[in-house]
């Protein structure tokens, strides 16, 4: 099969640049074609990477995420000031200087200005990124751990265990994350670790649901029955046959979930439940600076933009992954 005005199948191989003259439908057709082509050794993940690379929005997401992670890792090196240092509490600073040190607009000394206590906003932002990254990763890992375990039990074994698990998931699902987190946080008390736990625990229900339904369709495949006929253990069947074929929607959801967790942390910090002051997080920065939105609105825009960009980046990557993992999945999840 050949398309007119277009080279042979080798032109469709991953790794080769293609002219971008083709409309979206043709491009889609090509991807299908490429998938069906009998080309050399192709691990399936290289197909995914190939499709992802050609999705500009996903690349934008990836770049932002890489920057975010680098900032979080190298925060102490990148920060220009001590994020906690406030001239207002420094006895060596004269009161005239104190008055001038607060709420400075961005300048060469303080790249993003100073806040109401004269602290360097840029340095606080850089250090605060660690909270967001940690919350995103840890909370999603907790959700995955619980969600995948129960989703697998429910989907693979079925029966009354399935009913019990899915009814409990319904209860968790009915709670909006932030409301649920507030309830959990009031029990556990404020603090960052408890934010991880609260957001993580609340996320399991959706993951369990998605994984369960994905498993239900995958386990109907005859290769699962073939594995049973060979005498494969349940663990092996789940791990080798069901997991690799049902994990795609989970990858997508978990990626987006990192963004969701970052946003949830911001909400909780806003309510004074997350990172405790004076240590910075984007959420508590936003809630502090929001007070000055009439007089100095630029202050709140700094953590606000950081939050929005990070959340958006994970959504873009998740969206790109969904299309890349399985073109047929488009529009679902």
């Amino acid at each position, binding site marked *: 099969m050949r398309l007119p005005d277009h080279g042979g199948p080798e032109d469709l191989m991953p790794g080769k640049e293609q002219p971008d003259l083709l409309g979206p439908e043709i491009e889609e057709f090509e991807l299908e074609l490429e998938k069906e082509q009998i080309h050399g050794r*192709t691990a399936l993940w290289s197909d995914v990477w190939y499709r992802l690379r050609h999705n500009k929005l996903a690349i934008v997401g990836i770049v932002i995420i890489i920057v975010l992670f680098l900032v979080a890792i190298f925060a102490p090196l990148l920060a220009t000031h001590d994020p906690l240092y406030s001239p207002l509490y420094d006895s060596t600073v004269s009161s005239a200087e104190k008055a001038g040190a607060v709420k400075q607009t961005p300048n060469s000394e303080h790249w993003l200005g100073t806040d109401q206590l004269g602290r360097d906003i840029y340095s606080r932002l850089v250090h605060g990124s660690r909270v967001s990254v940690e919350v995103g990763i840890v909370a999603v890992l907790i959700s995955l751990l619980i969600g995948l375990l129960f989703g697998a039990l429910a989907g693979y074994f079925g029966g009354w265990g399935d009913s019990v698990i899915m009814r409990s998931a319904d209860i968790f699902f009915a709670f909006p994350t932030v409301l649920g987190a507030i309830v959990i946080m009031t029990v556990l008390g404020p603090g960052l670790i408890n934010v991880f736990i609260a957001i993580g625990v609340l996320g399991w229900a959706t993951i369990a649901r998605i994984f369960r339904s994905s498993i239900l369709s995958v386990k109907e495949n005859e290769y699962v029955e073939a594995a049973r006929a060979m005498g494969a253990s349940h663990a092996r069947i789940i791990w080798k046959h069901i997991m690799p074929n049902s994990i795609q929607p989970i990858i997508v959801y978990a990626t987006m979930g990192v963004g969701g967790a970052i946003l949830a942390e911001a909400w909780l910090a806003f309510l004074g439940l997350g990172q405790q002051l004076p240590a910075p997080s984007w959420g508590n920065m936003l809630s502090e600076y929001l007070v000055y939105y009439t007089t100095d609105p630029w202050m709140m825009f700094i953590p606000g933009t950081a939050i929005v960009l990070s959340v958006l980046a994970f959504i873009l990557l998740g969206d790109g992954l969904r299309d890349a993992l399985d073109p047929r999945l488009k529009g679902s999840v």
Partner: protein
Amino acid sequence: MAMLIEARDIVKHFPVGKGLILSRLGGTVKAVDGVSLQVEEGKTLGLVGESGCGKSTLARLMLRLIKADSGEVIFEDRDILKLPNKDMQAVRRSMQIIFQDPYASLNPRMSVGAIVMEPMVIHGEGDKESRRNRAIELISLVGLQPEHFARYPHEFSGGQRQRIGVARALALNPRLIICDEPVSALDVSIQAQILNLLKELQEDFNLTYIFIAHDLSVVRHISDEVAVMYLGKIVERAEHDLLYSSPKHPYTVALMSAVPLPDPEKERERKRIILEGDVPSPIDPPSGCRFHTRCWKKRDICAEQEPPLEDKAPGHLAACFFPENL
């Protein structure tokens, strides 16, 4: 000759509805309803019947992939349905299955090598090196190239995939292979290739087959004995030649009339018997003889009593009060 596998009066009814309440109200699908059969070592039993008559269910029951409601499956002189799981694991080495759908039967995330080696891994056979060598040997044996080892299923055609499935089934040197419509999804030209491959392998390794198909033409060239199933029951069973030369059950006769004849003259005279109506629901199968609703020879007794599966001629079992070709 010794029997390798024998099913005795095996029954499987599936509850219709889901959940505790619905399943009690909804009745059951009588997928397999008292089936007995035997296959001798090294022979092929062709199992034929329309879609939904319970062929795959019977296959799964005999491999103990689903639990039978009652009955026995004697394999290598033991009732495998009563074996503890540990002993069953050893039995699984000797019985394998090949599926109909060449796309659904291979894990798309595993390379051909990994697929073929998997049975050896599960049963702890050999070390990495020897498993690899054996897999390459098997891949060549079924007519693929050794370099296909590292490829993935999506790179192969339906016929090639079916060969991969055959290689996987052979990995542990089984004695019995149940072939569940292994060629139904393939082009006619490819069908013959796969059938020939299976035949050759049978001769080389003294394999025993239960070969499932939905029409009589496919099993014609491969079976030693043929059993015809209708709505969860076997209605006729005989040696290949007996069955094809003088079918006894009207249902078999009807199926037979759908098979094109090789002789053009006879083919012109062939009269097709078109069965009236659909296959009745297996949830509420007809009383008496299950075929009576579609049978042109039906009389009162057919709806009242169930005809036993008995010898109508030496070695020729049929379940009919008014058999043909006597």
